[in-house]
Structure formats: C-alpha cells, structure tokens
C-alpha cells in the first residue's frame, strides 16, 4: 500500500480541474448577466457569446494561484500544525486578495463601482462561509464518529 507520490503532474491536474470549475462558473455568469454588463465589465465584454482568449488566460492564472494556495494552506507540505478551520480561513483570505488584485489589474469591472464590489464581496463571503461551515460540520461529525469507535474498541476487552 503505497502513498501516491505527488509529482508536478498531480498539481497540473489539480490546477486544470480548478480551471474547469472557474470557467464553468464564469460561463454561467456570462450567460446570465453577460448581455446586461457587456458595455460595462471587461470580464463579459462579449456578452453571452462566450469569453475572450485574454480572459480565459487570466482565469487560468487564477486557477494556478488557487492551486498554489491550496498546497500552502490545505496540505501539510509547509504548514504542519494548524486546525482545518484556520487553514480554510487563510486559504479564502489569500484567494480573495489575489482576486481583488486581478480585478484591479485586468479591469474585470470598473473599480469605482461600489455596487459591483459589494456584489462581489457578498457572493465571495457567502461561498466562504458556506464552505467553512460544511468543513467544520464534517470535521466535527468525523471526530465524534472516531471517538465513539475508539471508546467502543477500548470497552471491548
């Protein structure tokens, strides 16, 4: 029983899996709000017709950075002792900083538009809270299950 050795291809696969999810989310967003925002947000300047090559490359860069953040915060490659909750918070905060930087650098939407920022922050915060909550609940359920199994094992003999 050998542990899977993580080569560079493992991380490339992970980055492309993340890229797939990001492109899917943005494709859905472009279908829903693309036409309304095409004259306004560079991200959806093609309306609901799709996404341009530069935008697709920018999203690939985002996927690579998210994969890096996952390696840093959600594995024990660099950080050994940290709770899952704190790891998740640090992961989401670092990704948020990167996305904000990309919004400004690539002008995904007008940076002076407070409503757009508010919409972005609310949707990001919501996804962060839901994800952290699910992780926490799963962690607690798993811990309880393991502790009960251990107590049962110790009562056995």
């Amino acid at each position, binding site marked *: *029983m*050998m*542990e899977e050795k993580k080569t560079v291809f493992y991380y490339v696969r992970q980055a492309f899996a993340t890229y797939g999810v990001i492109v899917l989310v943005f494709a859905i967003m472009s279908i829903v709000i693309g036409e309304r925002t095409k004259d306004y947000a560079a991200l959806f300047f093609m309306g609901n017709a799709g996404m341009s090559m530069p935008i697709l490359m920018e999203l690939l860069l985002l996927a690579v950075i998210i994969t890096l953040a996952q390696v840093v915060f*959600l*594995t*024990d490659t660099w950080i050994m002792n*940290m709770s*899952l909750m704190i*790891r998740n918070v640090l992961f989401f905060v670092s990704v948020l900083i990167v996305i904000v930087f990309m919004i400004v650098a690539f002008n995904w939407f007008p940076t002076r538009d407070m409503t757009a920022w508010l919409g972005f922050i609310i949707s990001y915060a919501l996804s962060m809270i839901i994800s952290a909550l699910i992780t926490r609940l799963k*962690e607690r359920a*798993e*811990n309880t*299950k*393991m*502790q009960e*199994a*251990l107590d*049962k*094992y*110790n009562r056995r*003999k």
Partner: protein
Amino acid sequence: MKIEIDIDEKYPDTEVVIRANKLDSDVERLVAMMRMVNMQIGVRKNDETYLLDVEKILYIEAVERKTFVYTSDETYESDLKLYEIEQELLERDFFRISKQSIVNIRMIKSLKSDINRKIRITLRNDEQIVVSRMYSDELRRKLGLK
C-alpha cells in the same frame, strides 16, 4: 544458527534454551523477541536493560535506524527493528501509523481528523502524533468505521 524443536508431552512447561559461544547482538535480539511472547519487551536506557510490560508503551518509533520506545514518562531504546516489534505486537492492540511508528491503541485518548485525511492522535500523556494518510484508512477499518 541451528534450531531444534522438541515437542513431547513429558515436558511440563515450554522451555527455550539458547546455547551460544558468546552473547552477541543476534542472541540479544532472540531474547528480546521471546520476551514479547510474555508481553514484555527488552529495552535499554543509560546502558541498563529493563523488561518493559508492553501495556505501558504509548508508541514505538524508528529514528535513524534506532528504535525508541515511549512510555508516559520514559524513553527507552530497543535492539529490535520496528517491523520485528510490529510483527509481535500487532495482535496486542498495537497499530502501524506511519513508516516510522506504531502506537498502542489502548493508550489513545482522542482522535481528530486532520488535513489530507490524516488522523491526529492525542495520547494519554497529551502528546500528539499523526497517522499518515497511508495508514489512516486502515485505522478507521480497525476501529470498525469502514
């Protein structure tokens, strides 16, 4: 090494006699392995040899070709390799948790899931050790969770 086994009903007890021209490391290891059958393990500390009850062991760890045995308040060294101890103690509530260590399940205070499906063990002396991903599923199975 010559091995002779003599099974006969005339013997009231099981007896092992080792004949050797000197007490070398092979003989010491033989003795240590036989001690484990009696739930004891031969260990050393400060050039003194002790017979340690296996139920007192928290965990055993291999570090740089040496084998260390940890109890609540002492650390000993064993002449046996980790896999040799493991073979003898697997039936006695000991479990391999990583390439370097085996733990006494009876000495585990609590278990917590950790990153990458690993399990963090808190021992009765509050020391923490981690079950590597490779062995955590096996531990879940051993506890009846899979």
